[in-house]
Structure formats: C-alpha cells, structure tokens
C-alpha cells in the first residue's frame, strides 16, 4: 500500500515537472509553429475518439479470436 502511494506520487510528480518545463520553454526560445490552435478548438478530441474506437474495435476482434482458439483447444483435447 505504501509502495503504491509512492508510485503515484512519482507518477504525478513527473507530470507536474513536465508542466514547469513547458513554462520555461515559453519564455526562452523563438516560438515554433505547433498545432495548438487545433487543440484549443477541441477538434483533437475527434481524432482521439476515432483512434480509440479503431483500437477498441481491433481489441474486440483479437479477444474474439483468442476465445475461439481457446474453444478449439478444448475440443481437440
């Protein structure tokens, strides 16, 4: 239990460190054109929805295949 809490602390801690690193970037170098506008409009969520849908569909397919092979293994034994 203690170990688990330590893990999450480390996990989120490194996330926050990432945020502070980004803040430093903003003040220093010349800005580079990124697709920030797209994300600000919220459209990136559409892409994520599409990708995750495809991913879940593929997983469903592989899981069905897994079950079918398990059944086949039982029938052969």
């Amino acid at each position: 239990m203690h170990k688990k809490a330590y893990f999450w602390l480390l996990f989120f801690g490194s996330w926050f460190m990432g945020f502070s690193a980004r803040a430093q970037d903003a003040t220093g170098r010349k800005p580079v054109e990124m697709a920030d506008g797209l994300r600000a409009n919220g459209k990136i969520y559409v892409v994520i929805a599409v990708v995750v849908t495809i991913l879940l569909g593929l997983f469903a397919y592989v899981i069905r295949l897994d079950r079918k092979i398990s059944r086949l293994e039982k029938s052969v034994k």
Partner: protein
Amino acid sequence: MLRQYWWKIICVVALVYTCIEGFLGSVPALPIINETIRNLYFHVAMWFGMMILFIVSVIYSIKYLRTNNHVFDIYALEYAKGGIVFGCLGLLTGSIWAGFTWGAFWSNDPKQLGAVIALLIYFAYLVLRNSMTDMDKRARIGAVYNIFAFAMLFPTIWIIPRMVESLHPGGMGNPALDTNDIDKRMRIVFWPGAVPGWTLLGVWITTLRIRLQLVAEKKHTSEPSKKKFSHA
C-alpha cells in the same frame, strides 16, 4: 504466459493510454518536426516491439537446438513472423514520417538501408524454411539461420547507421533517444505506454498463432490418416 490473460489487460490499458495521452499531452516545440514528434509513440515503438520479438525468437531457436523439441521451433518461427510484421510497419511509418520532415519518402539513408537489409535477412529465414520438406531438417537449419539473422541485426540496425552521417536521430554516435529530442513529458507516455503496449500486442497475436499451430499439430498426430498439415 501462453494462456494467461493478465498481461493482455496491461496491453489494452497501455495502448489506450498511449493513444489518448499521446495526442493530448504536451510535446517539445521543435522546428520542422512540429507535431510529428508524436510519431515517437507509434513509429519508434514498432522497432522496440520488433527487437523484443526477435530476441524471444532467437531464444526459442537456441532452446530448440539444445532440446530438439519441435514445439520450440514453432515458437521461434511465429515470434520471428511477428517481429517481421512490426519491422515492416516501422519501415513504412518511418518512410511516411520522412516524407514530411526529410523531404523524401525514401532517401537511401543509412538507417533506412540498414533496416531494409535486416528485414530482407529475416525474409530469407522464411524462404529458407519453406524450401525444405523434411520437418527436422527445416527446424534445425531454420534455428541455425535464425541465430545468424539475429546476429546480423547488430551491424545493420545498431552499429553501421551510428557510424555514418544520417538524417535519422541516432547518427554519428548519439543515442536515438536523445534528451534534446524527447523530454519527461514524452517519456511518461513512451516508456510505460507505447513500448509495453505495442510489444504486448505483438506477443498477443503471436501467441494466438502459436496456439493455432499447436492445435493443428495435435490434430495431425491424432489423425495420421488425414491430409498432412503444412507448417509454412
């Protein structure tokens, strides 16, 4: 491992995390590369997956040579096939990425050529196996060749591309995962998400193929009068 499911859950969670945080998370702002740096979670993970599957394959080839157990030969073959699929996807995705950042889909870069040579050597593994009809001979020569193919991965994708100038990160002695290119924000998606996720997906599909081959084997030995099953 073959019929357990706990690692399949890890695979699903890791890949869903990669595909959400991989697009949402913030990345370093670099010129030319821009948002394509997110390809790290997909393109680079393919090569990690390929390398791990090839390592497992060569371990089973050695195991086969030590024990002469035909099952290990099936494992070695299927893991090599899984690795080849990942390698081809890595090459294709790398070519797409290069098309929009290096200016050409194919520029005969040492890294590209090395990867193609490594994959051709593995294609030859499949061709060599299918050129023999005797099962024991096929398995033994296949296992020996698989060790050679694995050894050839080191000069072709690990050493030579690092010794010569290359457009690809990792040229001229720098590690491919340079700290200037990726930082903490990306590592937290790449290491716990992309690498284990894609690798485990490859292992999952490979184990399904192994199980199918083992079932076919069992059917073949229990019904000797039926048509011989090909292991190609």
